[in-house]
């Protein structure tokens, strides 16, 4: 992506290249356009952010959401955090998302490796299977999945439930996340791995490296950009999942961060400012992850998407 240096270099370049094509005015026009779009983009979220620092009933409701504030406050954030029990729900989300994310990436990398680096009878068929599976609507899976989980024994000591089966455990949520998301990740990683020259694997094989060593020591390190890109996307998806967390977890104490919004929505349906504050806190982790991995995100997807 554009780094600061690249920017300035290209801008100087532009000045020098003013060979009759009116590049500067075009740039200005372009910036005007992009800024307009950016403002339009920011209005909905900006309104929410702005009002999250105001009191609702005494201020926003009386003066309107776009007026100057009476006072600015962090009270909404405190209330949202406490009432939504966000400390607990953040913890639950971490418990679900982190293992799900890493296992998904690991398993997808394994499938992609086996299917693209080696030729065997059904390798393409497997890739098709995974890709297609990911494109199905999730709600459709629910009823049968529920019945399956109910019948899979699971020791209570490994979960916070006392039912003796998988239903209602966080493991159940992690499993369906993995099973479903493996499809998309396999697809992207397979595309990526195809771009890694065969010779690398061959060289390793000649040196006597087995399949596992090729995977762990040659291919996996080279796949890092794609893994980073996927980590960003998958983190966003898993983190924001409301559906599986709500339908599979019986215990309120087990529910993920997205359920905090449901709790607050029920309770403060009229206090938009407080819900806005909660929404912003909930969005922060995904935003941070995106900003950190932004560069890898773009370059990682590039290969996956384009070199297929």
């Amino acid at each position, binding site marked *: 992506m554009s780094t600061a240096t690249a920017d300035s270099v290209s801008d100087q370049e532009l000045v020098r290249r003013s060979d009759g094509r009116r590049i500067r005015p075009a740039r200005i026009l372009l910036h005007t356009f992009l800024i307009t779009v950016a403002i339009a983009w920011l209005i909905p979220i900006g309104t929410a952010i702005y009002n999250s620092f105001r009191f609702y*009933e005494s201020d926003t409701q009386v003066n309107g959401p776009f007026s100057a504030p009476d006072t600015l406050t962090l009270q909404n954030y405190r209330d949202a955090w406490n009432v939504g029990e966000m400390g607990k729900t953040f913890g639950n989300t971490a418990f679900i998302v982190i293992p799900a994310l890493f296992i998904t990436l690991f398993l997808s990398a394994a499938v992609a490796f086996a299917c693209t680096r080696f030729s065997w009878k059904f390798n393409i068929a497997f890739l098709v299977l995974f890709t297609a599976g990911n494109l199905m609507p999730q709600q459709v899976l629910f009823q049968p999945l529920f019945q399956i989980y109910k019948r899979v024994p699971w020791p209570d000591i490994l979960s916070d439930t006392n039912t003796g089966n998988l239903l209602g455990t966080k493991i159940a949520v992690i499993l369906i996340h993995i099973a479903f998301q493996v499809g998309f990740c396999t697809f992207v990683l397979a595309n990526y791995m195809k771009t890694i020259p065969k010779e690398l694997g061959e060289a390793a094989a000649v040196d006597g490296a087995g399949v596992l060593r090729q995977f762990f020591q040659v291919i996996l390190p080279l796949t890092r950009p794609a893994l980073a890109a996927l980590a960003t996307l998958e983190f966003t998806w898993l983190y924001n999942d*409301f*559906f599986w967390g*709500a339908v599979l977890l*019986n215990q309120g104490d087990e529910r993920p961060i997205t*359920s905090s919004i449901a709790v607050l*929505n029920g309770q403060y*349906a009229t206090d938009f400012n407080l819900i806005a504050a909660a929404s912003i806190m909930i969005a922060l982790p995904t935003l941070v992850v995106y900003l950190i991995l932004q560069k890898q995100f773009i370059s990682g997807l590039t290969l996956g998407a384009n070199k297929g």
Partner: protein
Amino acid sequence: MSEQPERSPSPSKVGFALNRRQLIVGGAAAAGGAAFLSACGGDDDTTATTAAPEATTAPEATTAPEATTAPEATTAPATAPPADLGEVTFGSNYSDEKPKAGMAAAVAVSGLDVKINTVDHNSYQENFNTYIQQPDDVMAWFAGYRMRAFASKGVVGDISDVWTGLGDMSEGFKNASTALDGKQYFVPFYFYAWGLHYRKSLFEEKGYAIPVTWDEFLALCEQMKTDGITPLAGANDGRWPQMGMFDMLNMRVNGYDFHVSLMGGKESWTDDRVKEVFAKWAELLPYYQPDANGRTWQDGANVIGDKSAGMFLLGNFITSNFDGATQQDIIDDIDFFLFPEINPEHGQDAIEAPIDGFMMAASPKNADGSKALLGSLGTKEAVEAYIGVDPSVVAANGAADTSGYNSLQQKAAELVGGSKYIAQFLDRDTDPSFAADVVGIGIADFIADPSKIDTILDTIEAQKATYTFE
């Protein structure tokens, strides 16, 4: 579910732990004091039997509180034995701040070791169908059709023996807790009432009188319109708030028995009597706040709050829209009255008052503990503890102390106690999916375009055929 994103607002802040579904699905009928007529009894074959007791009780006590105080001595049924019964798990949808604290206080009365599993009320209801397949020992739910539906499927436990200890519950509440097999599956906790809410000060200022007949009601609406006030606040976001209007009109025009029969799937929606209900409704629509379909009930409550609208047909939870700290004056100023009479044959004999309470799992891990907990939750001490924290509802237990009730609570107890028939709410009195996905859609379409009512009713009737009613 939904994402789910959420959903419709629940009347929670003040302490109604109900949310859209609960409201909609309102179950049986509750009466304040001794009088409690079970609406739900009506939708099934026991209609006749349930109606009878109520009718008799009604005159007995005008205010719930009084009638209740008498039997106080008998209350002690479940002064539950201590923790040696072991841990009981309790699934609660009392997820808002006050109700949650109130429920903790109510449960503490039992002295049992109770593990409360609180789930936000919207998800709780949306997922109850699956939750019930692997439930906690005791769980919060609603009286009426919704309770009976689960009872008849055998997924909740018979607690008839708990009822032997619930001496202070009126016959009506017992009926509302009884399934088709004649056994009890439910312990009522509290109820609240639906009616036309208004600002006392506005009526005083303008000299408006409480309308008792349909003509007076229309005249009042007309007067308000002339005065530049929107006569009726209109909200239907989530497609449940206007179900209350249908219930009231139907019970006023055709009477409670027909309503129950219609909810039970036994009458045709294309019947002229149903058309008459919508004809009356169409007379009211010009007085509605425009664009009701996209408005939340909270936004509807706001126009009552700022007096730009005159009346709002809603549950008592309307006060939860206002902040106790800064808007107490508004809360104190809100009152409600019964929906006016339309057909003299039925007068104002019916009211809508959903009851919330508890059920037990079909095979609880700790059966003795569960029953002890249910017995305790049915006592006046438990509900008093709850209402002490969340004073917005009316105790189901007839012996509960009502001296601390605010004016709205007292009014609710009084009006419900004085009503001959008590309905729950459209989505508690019939199949909830039929209510939400068929009738709710029909009502929204009607509000958008009243002229299409014949087509709408044909559609409802056709879709009704795909449902099995109990």
